[in-house]
């Protein structure tokens, strides 16, 4: 009966209208042929059914391109339904049949003139989708007409078509002037047209990052804001995303835009809400925090974010990823909304994990009790990942909110009692962190932890437990037994555990030396001899060496007080966070990666930044944030490779003033296997110690010394330089120590002959004052919205100064100046804020002197003396780079003792000597000497050989690098030779330039 009814029903349907599902039936032989016949049928209805069949085949992936001419033949019809179907087919296959596609052009052009706007729009829409280069030239005229069509439906379709055409042939679009027409459409009366024009322009602008296509100025912004109120929700998204790229001129404009965007927050479409949040988060940066409106805005942002959490889990997840960013940037927005992030038992696990993360970020003293109660509940749930994260969260709470630490620890102990394996392991990992944060407070729980030693099977937990045992070895009676038990399977452990075990046993040894010698021997030989892991081996050797050389020092190093761990963990790096905030609501905010990491091609690769804050008291922004922006304006700053950095570090460490003077040279090379753990141990173990068995080492490490030791043996049997000067063998005698680190007790006798030579030391003539180059323009007004900066550097009375002239060439008053340097080679940094006390009115110039110090962060620059500077005023932030004369870094105490000079000169390898020629310089040696001394280049000795004056000079840079120089002056010859020797030959070029500048001045 039922069957019969179905059949009847079907028959009835056949009679009236055929259903589409039969098109999906399997391919039969000759199907194409049959379709061909049907397509060429005279009956309109049959044609339509045939085209539908073709499209059905196309959908399931069958190749029906052979029917192209037949389908195109159906194009000329009055039936809109059929026309749409044919166009659908065309879009799909035009690319594979470019020649045939031309056949369709005529119909398209004709349709673009059709009285029915639906058909005009359909034609222009479809033409744009046919991605065949040949067709584009035919497209231009119809498109031009449609862009000016009287019907908004046609205009909005044409606007999108420009973007399509631009993707196929960008040049054509520019040549035909379509971009200008598109810009005009921003002022269109129909908001939908405006929205599409904005969308199309935004996309085109992304592929031309430097063009000023979307010329966002207050007038256009106003138009956009007006259209925002009227267009569809999807149009609102385009417009809001476009607004987010605008940088308001001042906080007042920023506020007025915020006010007009705020109503979008209550929109039902979450995409609109998020785009609005993005605009507000960005523009908020410009509002001063003490403004009333700032507080109002903060309050308004919370409810829409909370509302998002009532959506489907998919949207919730996306929302939570965004909230995670927002909470890191501005925790105050959601600080009262903790409850909404509590986990529901039927949330999917990925939502639960995100919620937990946000709960921790929002945890504070005010809500910690509530949070902890929740976390405790979560820790007994079923899902393993979630439980682990909950346990970890309890630990993070303890670290973040000190008042709750005790309660957190007792909660963790309760959880350990459950003996659930993974709970115990997680708990131990976090308890280790709690010990780090609150040393000597909760050690009473160690006994409980030790009970669970056997159940630990994850490396992280094992490593944490070993760390605890080592750290508190003196309080654990059987610490040696515990650690020994781990040692049995040493080679099966992961590296993490091995390293931790090595350190823990060394700690134990330093605390209880008598009972644990054997253990430490064992672990050291396991680490150094039987392991392939270089990290482990190196650490083993370092401990070995330390223990054998100076156990007291070893104690100081190994048992040194540890820095406290920071409160917040897993924070996103600030620069990345700023960029991600600019991408709220997009994929970047879900992945927590910048778009450049996952979008191919030019699109989206521009790094977006938050605008500078208006608060005058705040710093401009972190120098790191500037790096990328600065790099695009100045000659490319090469980021030093690992090797360069290392080289720099080594050089910087050569400071003779170093307080931890290098160990006696004798302890380095010669110390073989024999005295390992030998003499030094006495001080640890007292008298009763018996000599330790010496481990048999076959492979003596080649250079186990710390890097700051002199790399070459002090062997000065015949000092050539010394010989030349006076032939005194005594000079060499005291030079055993590393050359630049002069022992204060250095009192080697120097023969009388040399005294004469070196007596010049006091200086020749009067110091002429430090060389200060004349000011040059660093930042032209054109590049900086009217602010011109010219300046120079100088060293006056031992203080490095940056002397600048700020000129206002704009029409408005400039205020709120601030300055910041990027990291640079010598750690130059402003010693104080930029003192511009009065506003600079138009056409006014003021002189500013900024004292500098050299305690800033260091990064090697190219060239070495390059300095990247960010200057902020009330208008914007500007970047420029300039080069400073390295002579301003020469210290007043750069005069080297004569003997030291000789030794050093000899000690620096000849490869490090660089020779330069000073051309066209007229001076005699006395004048030169006096000029140079003004810039802290000190003449130590002078010698005359065959009419040539040889000046030996030294100077010392602020970072402790010494530069030694030999200047040869030949009377009557304008060309002179400068030889520079330095352990860091990179600086020589700059030093020579300073010579040149000083002497030619």
């Amino acid at each position, binding site marked *: 009966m039922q069957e019969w009814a179905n059949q009847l029903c079907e028959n009835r349907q056949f009679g009236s209208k055929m259903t589409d599902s039969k098109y999906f039936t399997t391919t039969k032989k000759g199907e194409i042929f049959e379709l061909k016949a049907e397509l060429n049928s005279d009956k309109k209805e049959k044609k339509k059914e045939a085209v539908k069949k073709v499209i059905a085949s196309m959908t399931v992936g069958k190749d029906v391109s052979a029917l192209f001419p037949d389908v195109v033949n159906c194009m000329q019809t009055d039936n809109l339904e059929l026309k749409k179907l044919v166009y659908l087919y065309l879009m799909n296959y035009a690319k594979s049949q470019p020649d045939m596609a031309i056949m369709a052009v005529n119909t398209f052009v004709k349709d673009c003139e059709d009285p029915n706007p639906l058909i005009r729009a359909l034609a222009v829409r479809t033409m744009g989708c046919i991605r065949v280069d040949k067709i584009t030239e035919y497209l231009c005229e119809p498109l031009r007409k449609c862009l000016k069509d009287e019907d908004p439906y046609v205009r909005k379709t044409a606007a999108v078509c420009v973007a399509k055409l631009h993707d196929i042939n960008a040049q054509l679009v520019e040549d035909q002037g379509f971009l200008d027409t598109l810009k005009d459409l921003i002022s269109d009366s129909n908001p939908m047209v405006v929205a599409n024009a904005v969308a199309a322009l935004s996309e085109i602008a992304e592929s031309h990052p430097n063009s000023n296509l979307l010329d966002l100025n207050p007038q256009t912004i106003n138009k956009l804001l007006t259209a925002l109120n009227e267009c569809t929700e999807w149009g609102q998204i385009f417009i809001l995303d476009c607004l987010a790229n605008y940088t308001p001129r001042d906080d007042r404009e920023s506020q007025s835009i915020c006010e007009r965007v705020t109503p979008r927050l209550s929109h039902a479409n979450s995409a609109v809400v998020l785009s609005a949040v993005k605009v507000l988060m960005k523009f908020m940066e410009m509002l001063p925090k003490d403004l009333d409106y700032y507080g109002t805005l903060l309050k308004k942002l919370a409810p829409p974010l909370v509302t998002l959490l009532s959506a*489907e889990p998919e949207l919730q997840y*996306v929302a939570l990823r965004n909230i995670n960013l927002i909470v890191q940037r501005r925790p105050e927005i959601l600080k009262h909304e903790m409850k909404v992030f509590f986990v529901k038992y039927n949330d999917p696990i990925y939502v639960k994990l995100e919620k937990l993360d946000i709960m921790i970020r929002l945890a504070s003293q005010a809500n910690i009790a509530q949070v902890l109660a929740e976390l405790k509940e979560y820790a007994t749930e079923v899902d393993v990942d979630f439980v682990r994260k909950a346990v970890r969260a309890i630990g993070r709470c303890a670290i973040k909110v000190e008042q709750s630490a005790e309660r957190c620890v007792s909660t963790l102990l309760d959880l350990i009692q459950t003996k659930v394996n993974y709970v115990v392991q997680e708990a131990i990992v976090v308890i280790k962190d709690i010990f780090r944060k609150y040393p000597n407070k909760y050690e009473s729980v160690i006994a409980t932890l030790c009970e669970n030693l056997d159940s630990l099977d994850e490396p992280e937990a094992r490593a944490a437990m070993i760390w605890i045992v080592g750290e508190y070895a003196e309080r654990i009676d059987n610490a040696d037994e515990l650690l020994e038990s781990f040692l049995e399977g040493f080679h099966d452990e992961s590296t993490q555990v091995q390293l931790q075990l090595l350190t823990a046993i060394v700690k134990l040894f330093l605390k209880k030396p008598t009972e644990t010698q054997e253990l430490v021997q064992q672990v050291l030989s396991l680490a150094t001899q039987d392991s392939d892991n270089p990290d482990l081996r190196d650490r083993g050797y370092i401990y070995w060496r330390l223990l054998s050389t100076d156990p007291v020092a070893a104690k100081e190093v190994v048992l040194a007080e540890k820095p406290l761990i920071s409160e917040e963990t897993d924070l996103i790096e600030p620069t990345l966070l700023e960029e991600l905030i600019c991408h709220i609501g997009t994929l970047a905010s879900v992945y927590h990666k910048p778009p450049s990491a996952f979008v191919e091609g030019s699109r989206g690769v521009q790094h977006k930044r938050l605008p500078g804050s208006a608060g005058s008291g705040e710093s401009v922004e972190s120098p790191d944030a500037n790096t990328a922006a600065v790099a695009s304006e100045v000659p490319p700053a090469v980021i030093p490779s690992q090797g360069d950095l290392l080289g720099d570090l080594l050089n910087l460490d050569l400071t003779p003033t170093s307080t931890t003077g290098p160990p006696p040279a004798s302890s380095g090379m010669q110390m073989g296997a024999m005295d390992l753990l030998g003499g030094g141990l006495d001080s640890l173990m007292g008298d009763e110690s018996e000599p330790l068995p010496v481990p048999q080492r076959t492979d003596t490490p080649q250079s186990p010394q710390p890097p700051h030791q002199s790399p070459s043996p002090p062997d000065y049997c015949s000092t050539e330089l010394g010989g030349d000067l006076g032939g005194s063998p005594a000079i060499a005698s005291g030079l055993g120590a590393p050359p630049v680190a002069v022992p204060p007790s250095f009192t080697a006798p120097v023969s009388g002959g040399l005294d004469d030579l070196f007596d010049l030391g006091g200086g020749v003539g009067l110091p002429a004052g430090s060389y200060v180059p004349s000011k040059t323009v660093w930042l032209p007004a054109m590049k900086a919205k009217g602010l011109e900066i010219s300046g120079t550097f100088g060293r006056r009375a031992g203080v490095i100064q940056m002397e600048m002239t700020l000129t206002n060439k704009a029409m408005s008053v400039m205020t709120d100046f601030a300055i910041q340097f990027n990291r640079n080679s010598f750690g130059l940094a402003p010693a104080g804020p930029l003192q511009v006390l009065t506003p600079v009115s138009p056409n006014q110039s003021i002189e500013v002197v900024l004292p500098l110090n050299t305690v800033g962060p260091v990064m090697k620059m190219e060239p070495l003396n390059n300095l990247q500077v960010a200057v902020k005023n009330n208008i914007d932030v500007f970047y420029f780079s300039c080069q400073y004369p390295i002579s301003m870094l020469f210290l007043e105490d750069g005069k080297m003792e004569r003997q030291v000079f000789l030794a050093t000169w000899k000690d620096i390898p000849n490869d490090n000597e660089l020779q330069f020629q000073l051309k066209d310089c007229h001076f005699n040696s006395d004048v030169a000497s006096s000029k140079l001394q003004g810039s802290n280049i000190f003449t130590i000795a002078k010698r005359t050989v065959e009419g040539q004056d040889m000046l030996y000079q030294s100077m010392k840079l602020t970072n402790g690098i010494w530069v030694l120089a030999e200047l040869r002056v030949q009377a009557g010859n304008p060309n002179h030779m400068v030889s520079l020797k330095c352990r860091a030959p990179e600086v020589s070029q700059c030093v020579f330039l300073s010579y040149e500048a000083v002497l030619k001045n």
Partner: protein
Amino acid sequence: MISQVFILSSKGDRLIYKDFRGDAGSDVVNVFYEKVTALTGDQPPVVMRHKQAHYVHVRQGGLYLVAITTADSSPFAVIEFLNRFAALVKDYCGGLSEKSVQMNFALIYELLDEMVDYGYVQSTSSDVLKNFIQTEAVSPQPFSLFDLGNVGLFGADTQQSKVAPSSAATRPIQGGKSEIFVDVVERMAVVIGTNGVLMKADVQGEVKVKCFLPSCSEIRIGLNEDLSVGTSQFRGYGTAVRVDECSFHPAVRLEEFDSHRILRLSPSQGEQSIMQYQLADHLPSALPFRLFPAIEKDSSGRLLMYLKLRCDLPPKSAAVNVSATIRVPKGCVSLSQELSSPDQNAELRSQSRAVLWKILRFPGGTQLSALFKLEVPALSSASMMEVGPVGLSFELPKVTATGLHIRFLRLSPVQPGPAQRWVRYVTHSDSYTIRI
């Protein structure tokens, strides 16, 4: 920007495939299906990435609706779009199923072409779209109200889909009887602490209109006159109906909302959510359920759970499809039960470590009890900690937790003939947790 949109059957067959920008490649469908079937439960399925293509999908009616984007576009926009797309297909084709999509593929292609141009969403409003659509819809079967037997109240089982179902009517919006449905659907999320104290109670509500009145130009919906919005704005004393926040569909006109709590709108054909609201904590009425648990270890090492569950709804109302999930320690091997009435049942689900106690109908003002005896080898005091929480799921027909009611529903112009107006209320449990 959306690069491609496609609909796949649950078996991975392509039903609809539309490439808007031609920049995402062509093997995307297979890649997507492989990825989505390989997902494990704890991976967020929201955005999946393969090379340069990012897949966003929603699952409705057993179908995958997928959008691909290659740029850094907004996942919110894409998900919203897919949900609207699903709703429109439902409205136009009378349901979202493999069959209805297959039968109406030409219509759906046409819809897609009007909704999205070159990846930019143009419009998702059925009112706008109907001006452009030429193809007529084909219904899978004649519409019948009697086909609803297999689905839960208002069309779906609450625990299977998180989207609260709202409408019994499934058929194309073109033609048919003149009817209008106004549904008030609320979802409750409650946490009750171990000591019986209410820790959290949230209600999320929604007013939905499903309209099949071609000639209706405006409807006016009157809500409770004493409804107040926001925390600061209390009207008078006593138990006024209150919501914390509410948001409205852009088509709703609110001229009379502030003075008389009247919503006015020109309804589109099909379904719309016209108002969404939330209320946190301060609920006006008592919670629907209270649980009184007693848990102990008996002499023979079994775990005894004695549970009393009381329904505090007014006596005229009743809860249906109530089920309580009681978490039990791991390693439970067997369950014996004593239930207070025959229309309940309980079973042990060892996989999810839970006892599931089901009550088909639970009238207001009554109380049920159950005694569960569980055999747990090696029952320790620590495993007692693993008992609980209890999760309740239920439906409360004809009840709103906030007390929101529709005072009247007026249509203008006055409908000729017997226009049928339906107003329905339901409250679902979203998450109702009682800790032990």
